[in-house]
């Protein structure tokens, strides 16, 4: 490192500005407590303070902000889901994304790439056609395209997949994008912080007080807090938090893994997803390929990585892109995905007054960060479910009113 740079680093003249303060003490009470400093929690804090005038809020994070799935995801943003409920919701989110960089005055590297979901069987061509029609009905840019169109956008692909599972078509979604995930957490964090919200890192919630079916406070690793409202946005930790308030839920946690390759010259512009091959891939601005597959096959509350995953995903990648056979994998990791039986989230009020849930976002919740923040802020501020999340409430299971997003969410994220 050049000496000059080192001196600059240590000099007090130009201190690196912090993104947000780190208050050293917890107050004894807040108007609302948000558990989980991921994108969802921080976005809710941001909109609560910006749009609803609630500033006496603490965000409690057991690690550091963005250390959960927000900082582990593969950042695909799209809205071509299968059900009307889903499509409306995600489309709002995609629209919010587009001016977030300006909102935050922070570069999120939001990059619109186009998103191909490949169909390798007649059955999936049929599902793609259905999805395209639902999407178009809601004004979303989504269409079924031929293998030649895929080839034109991605000439490096072996459309034949080694002869095993030839590509028969694809669902093309032009607005499909990627973004820089930690910047999302920092942007929301800074925006909330500037409006008076306190972000407490290294602060784990270890208990939640409920009296007469109403939340009264939370116990943390750093002391006790009184509060009438708690928003729980802890993704893979949701079952542990729900256990503290004795709420049964259908959420189950499986690890979801991902990996990146060494950087290469840019060759892959669009985002490519294949459900049959359990692969999705995009190339970052740095030139790395970011790759993921489907969920790990069994329940586990840990973010460990496995050799089976790297091996299996590499084999599938080579079906699509045989020329990558000499490319090295440089990192792999996992997050804990909070899954639901219908692949739709669980959001809104719960049987416990003042206890709000934003969970069940499993493998696809990054794209929904802005709209979750907005709708949950509304819900917490008004103690009333926002219109867009009404279909996602926890009691839908009791009523057998499932949403049915599995066809569009299972690998695609």
């Amino acid at each position, binding site marked *: 490192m050049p000496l000059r740079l080192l001196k600059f680093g240590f000099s007090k003249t130009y201190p690196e500005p912090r993104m947000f303060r780190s208050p050293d003490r917890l107050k004894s009470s807040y108007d609302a407590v948000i558990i989980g400093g991921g994108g969802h929690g921080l976005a809710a804090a941001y909109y609560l303070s910006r749009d609803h005038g609630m500033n006496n809020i603490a965000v409690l994070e057991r690690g550091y902000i963005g250390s959960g799935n927000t900082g582990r995801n593969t950042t695909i943003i799209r809205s071509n889901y299968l059900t009307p409920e889903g499509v409306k919701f995600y489309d709002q989110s995609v629209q919010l994304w587009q001016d977030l960089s300006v909102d935050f005055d922070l570069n999120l590297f939001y990059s619109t790439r186009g998103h191909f979901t490949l169909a390798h069987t007649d059955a999936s061509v049929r599902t793609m056609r259905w999805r395209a029609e639902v999407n178009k009905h809601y004004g979303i840019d989504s269409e079924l395209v031929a293998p030649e169109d895929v080839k034109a956008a991605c000439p490096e692909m072996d459309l034949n997949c080694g002869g095993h599972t030839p590509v028969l078509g694809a669902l093309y979604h032009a607005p499909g994008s990627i973004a820089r995930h930690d910047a999302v957490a920092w942007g929301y964090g800074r925006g909330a912080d500037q409006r008076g919200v306190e972000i407490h890192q290294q602060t784990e919630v270890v208990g939640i007080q409920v009296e007469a079916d109403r939340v009264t406070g939370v116990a943390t690793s750093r002391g006790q807090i009184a509060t009438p409202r708690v928003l729980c946005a802890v993704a893979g930790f949701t*079952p*542990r938090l*729900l*256990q503290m308030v004795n709420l*049964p*839920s*259908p*959420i*189950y*946690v499986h690890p979801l893994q991902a990996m990146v390759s060494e950087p290469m010259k840019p060759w892959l512009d669009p985002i490519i997803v294949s459900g049959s091959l359990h692969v999705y891939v995009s190339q970052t601005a740095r030139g790395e390929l970011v790759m993921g597959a489907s969920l790990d*096959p*069994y*329940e*586990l*509350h*840990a973010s*460990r990585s*496995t*050799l*089976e995953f790297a091996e299996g995903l590499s084999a599938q990648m080579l079906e699509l892109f045989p020329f990558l056979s000499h490319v090295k994998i440089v990192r792999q990791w996992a997050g804990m995905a909070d899954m639901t*039986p219908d692949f739709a989230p669980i959001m809104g009020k719960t049987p416990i007054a003042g206890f709000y849930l934003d969970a069940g976002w499993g493998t696809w919740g990054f794209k929904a960060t802005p709209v979750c923040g907005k709708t949950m802020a509304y819900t917490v501020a008004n103690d009333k479910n926002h219109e867009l999340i009404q279909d996602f409430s926890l009691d839908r*299971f*009791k*009523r*057998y009113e499932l949403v049915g997003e599995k066809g569009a969410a299972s690998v695609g994220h």
Partner: protein
Amino acid sequence: MKQMICPINGTRPIVEFTCGGDLQSMPDPHCGDTVWADYIFNRNNAPTIKQEWWCHTPSNTWFIAKRNTLTDEVLCTYLYGQEDV
């Protein structure tokens, strides 16, 4: 690679197995919609030691595994109904 012990086929890599979910007992089918919904949807999914159905797929052998879902340690495996054997 992680391994698991099939009570019939012995120690095998985990990729030869599929998990069939929690071992749970079915309520009386006439229990009413609420109890039934609780049975089919809700799970005890905080990390704990669980009994789960597992299947060794090449031989289609179903058995029970006691597993710690926080550390992924398999404590023991046995054929259904033969826990003490």
